[in-house]
């Protein structure tokens, strides 16, 4: 069980694992078939998106995601109990017909807290990923297209940021600004920026060697037009895949921050925070207090990754 839950002593998931994953995927993506896929993924071919609808992985992923989105929006309406109501007489009760997922040490209904706990993670995750994608795309385009000294300096900075554990950066921000939804969103967005920038830069480097770039220059186009009107549309598929994958990691990141106490603050229901509050009860056998929030995190990540996978395969087909 504890395997599914990030341990506080370990440096948390995103930073160390990502670089490799992102490199691998980028390498595969930009291969000859990838280039062909990009070529075929023109805006004029909505057939591509119909292909997406034919994929089971997409439907499963979308179903999971939709479920949590509904929970995030309407969870307070259909949760069996209020997630905040304490009842110390019913503390630490195992799963039963009255409390399907049992209760926590304060007697709150775990099922209700899991359902309503989807809210903030589903607000922060997409916003942070969008922020990181926008900043990362701009930075990556500039690095890849301008090259030279800018690329060298920005490249070193990006590596420096990647070398710092994510938690340390987050810790600095949260200590300075206090844990709030906007702060966590911006922190995760900024941490993702260099990662996305690097993927975009690699894709831009391939595009920059295509002859349409000198052809545009011979038409007197300026650099920003070449970057945004000529190159950007061709790297959008790569960015889209990167965005969905990053979304999955963002779920992890938010949960991790909450788990470490830098995220959503109690008593607001939140999966990471609930795991942090209750894992101490695991040796006493109160497994349900940890398992169900952990499964919630895992299912949301899985859903997002399934969608990312389907998109990537459609683009590569």
């Amino acid at each position, binding site marked *: 069980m504890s395997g599914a839950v990030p341990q506080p002593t370990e440096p948390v998931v995103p930073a160390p694992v990502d670089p490799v994953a992102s490199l691998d995927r980028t390498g595969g993506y930009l291969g000859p078939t990838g280039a062909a896929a*990009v*070529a075929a993924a*023109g805006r*004029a071919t909505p057939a591509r998106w119909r292909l997406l609808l034919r994929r089971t992985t997409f439907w499963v992923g979308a179903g999971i995601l939709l479920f949590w989105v509904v929970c995030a929006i309407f969870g307070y309406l259909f949760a069996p109990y209020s997630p905040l109501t304490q009842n110390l007489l019913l503390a630490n009760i195992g799963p039963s017909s009255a409390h399907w997922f049992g209760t926590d040490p304060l007697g709150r209904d775990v099922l209700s807290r899991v359902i309503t706990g989807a809210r903030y993670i589903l607000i922060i995750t997409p916003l942070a990923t969008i922020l990181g994608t926008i900043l990362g795309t701009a930075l990556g385009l500039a690095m890849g297209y301008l090259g030279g000294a800018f690329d060298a300096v920005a490249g070193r900075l990006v590596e420096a940021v990647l070398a710092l554990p994510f938690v340390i950066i987050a810790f600095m921000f949260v200590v300075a600004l206090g844990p709030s939804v906007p702060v966590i969103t911006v922190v995760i967005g900024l941490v993702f920026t260099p990662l996305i920038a690097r993927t975009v830069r690699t894709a831009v480097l391939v595009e920059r060697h295509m*002859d349409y770039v000198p*052809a545009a220059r*011979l038409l*007197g*186009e300026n650099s920003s037009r070449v970057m945004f009107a000529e190159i950007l549309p061709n790297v959008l598929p790569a960015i889209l895949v990167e965005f969905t994958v990053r979304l999955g990691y963002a779920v992890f990141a938010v949960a991790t921050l909450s788990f470490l106490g830098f995220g959503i603050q109690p008593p607001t229901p939140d999966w990471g925070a609930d795991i942090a509050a209750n894992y101490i009860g695991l040796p006493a056998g109160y497994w349900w207090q940890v398992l169900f929030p952990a499964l919630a995190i895992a299912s949301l990540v899985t859903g997002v990754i399934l969608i990312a996978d389907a998109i990537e395969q459609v683009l590569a087909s």
Partner: protein
Amino acid sequence: MSAESMASAPAAPAPADQALSVSHLDVTYRVRGQDRLALRDVSFQISRGESYGLVGESGSGKSTVALALVRYLPSNGRVSAGTISIDGLEPLSMGQGALRDLRARTVSMVYQEPGRALNPSIRVGRQIAEVFEIAGQSSGDAMASAEQMLRKVQISDPGRVMQRYPHQLSGGMAQRAVIAMALARSPTLLILDEPTTALDATVEAEVLDLVAALRQEFDTSVLFISHNLAVIAKMCDRVGVLYAGELLEQGPARAVFENPRHPYTVGLLRCIPRRGQRKDSDRLDTIPGFLPTPGHTLTGCIFAPRCALARDRCRQAEPPFFLVDEVRTSRCYFHEEAPDLPRATPAAVPELAHNGIGGAGLAGGADGAGLVAGTDGPLVVVEGLSKTFGGNVRALAGVDLSIQQGETLGLVGESGSGKTTLARVLLGLTAPDEGSVVTLDGKPLGPDARRRPREILRALQIVFQNPDSALNRRHTVRALISRPLSRLAGLSGSRLRDRLEELIASVRLEDRHLPLRPSQLSGGLKQRVAIARAFGARPEVVVCDEPTSALDVSVQAAILNLLADLQQTERATYLFISHDLGLVRYLSDRIVVLYLGRVMEVGPSETVFAGPHHPYTEALFSAVPSLDGQRPARIRLTGEIPSAADPPTGCVFHTRCPRKLTTGICESTEPPLHEDEPGHQIRCHIPLADLRELQRSQSVPFQGGS
């Protein structure tokens, strides 16, 4: 066309007498749940020791044949009918073990890209020795055998080559190593799939000579697959012409190319510029229409939709194989009329008024007259042009040349000779070294296109080699062609639309192409879009960098005609870069021969082709295989172009020059450009009269790809 002359298929002798016997082969690819026939009823035999050529354009199924023979078809492909027999063995009914054995012992394959056939992480010697080890030799013996094999493929220092990794070998050297591996087991059948397409003409000539010599020595049967008819004519005893998965004509190579009896073969041969054909007097013939889409459901002859001889009968029933004579077949009801196939494009140069497609004032504020008005001097002058990369690689070393208004200057040379660098400097995509002078109509050009005024950008445009790379795949044809009109010609609104209409008409595109993206167009159409973009703002000079080398022969002819027509109507000046001397001869008024960034020879096109030639030019000419199969006495270059980082002393060509003087002057002193007749200059120490004498006695004049 009597009943006796019809045969359902070429008569097949007993398979055991044949190195390869293919009969009624059908291959199907399953694409999106549908079966698509890639090969239909293909039958041919290769006798022992014979060399058989399969020629066809892209999409004809050439490579599918090669893959099917040894059952290397991709997982969605399968042989759906027919039989294959290699040396009496039947690969189609073999188990995996026997199949592996067949591939190891009986059949060898050589592909287009030697770099991909070799494992990049294993030394070359080890890879070749492995073949011998599988045959049961000890590792020591195998290494010795490998070394001997490398010597047989004429690698002069096999010991050193064996220690190298594949990326350390040049393309020609790597292909030799692959051929060494392929022949190591003395296979019954050697399949060569476009083995020289990725190589330079001079290297190609060497490799082809080598294959021809080894074929004799090893007594191997060869299946030679190529899109290049001249290469097939040179290498093969018999040839089969493949079109859309069907073998339309086959017979002795010489006979088929001299007297083709199928309209497709006739058309294909007419697409190639021949000696004596010039843009001033001739247009090339073309094959109208397109290859049928895969999975087509045509009834009747597969070529009928593109054939000027097609009649009702052709569209109703598929023609059988007609015996043209004892050894030739043609799949055409009217094969006797094939040589008289009407031309699809008139031979005469069309009467096109200058600026006939232009109309008044369409160049907008930038009316081209301002730049070139009333000058008699050359339009482009390049003096002392040098370009050094990375401090020591001299891609260009003191090039002087000029281009006259309205002419085509052909630029030839092997890859690495500096052709493309020269073009990029002219366009402002690469900055030349200090002290280089490049002027357009007497005004110096800035080194960087980004800082050149719009008027200069308008005047200099380019058609790139590969339209897939040159056209942004995210833009529509309309956006691609409109951009130069609004950016450089300053047009907008209805004037832009009018000019766009004219422009697409002049490159023979249609309105329905405008909303499409490049991926929805064929290669030829894409190149037309690229040409329209280059001509959009009425440039003075258009650089054509191998504009047809990514295209099929039949498409190439149409593009060359288009370039010739546009030059006439737009009075454009071309810098035409090509490795294909036949094309250069057809289109160029003058020719510059570059070697290691230096001008070796310059002169009017016909004078350069007539000689005397610089020895390097002579070698380039003699490297080109000719379609008539004649083998002129010729000179061969050995080895590859030296590195520009460390050019030879004296005459840079002396290391490869077959006519090097024994006095030592070639090694010590760089020769000046000697003038033969006005405008024809040769950079060589050998007196021109001597060169003329040498070349007259030892070689036949260049045939120009005919």
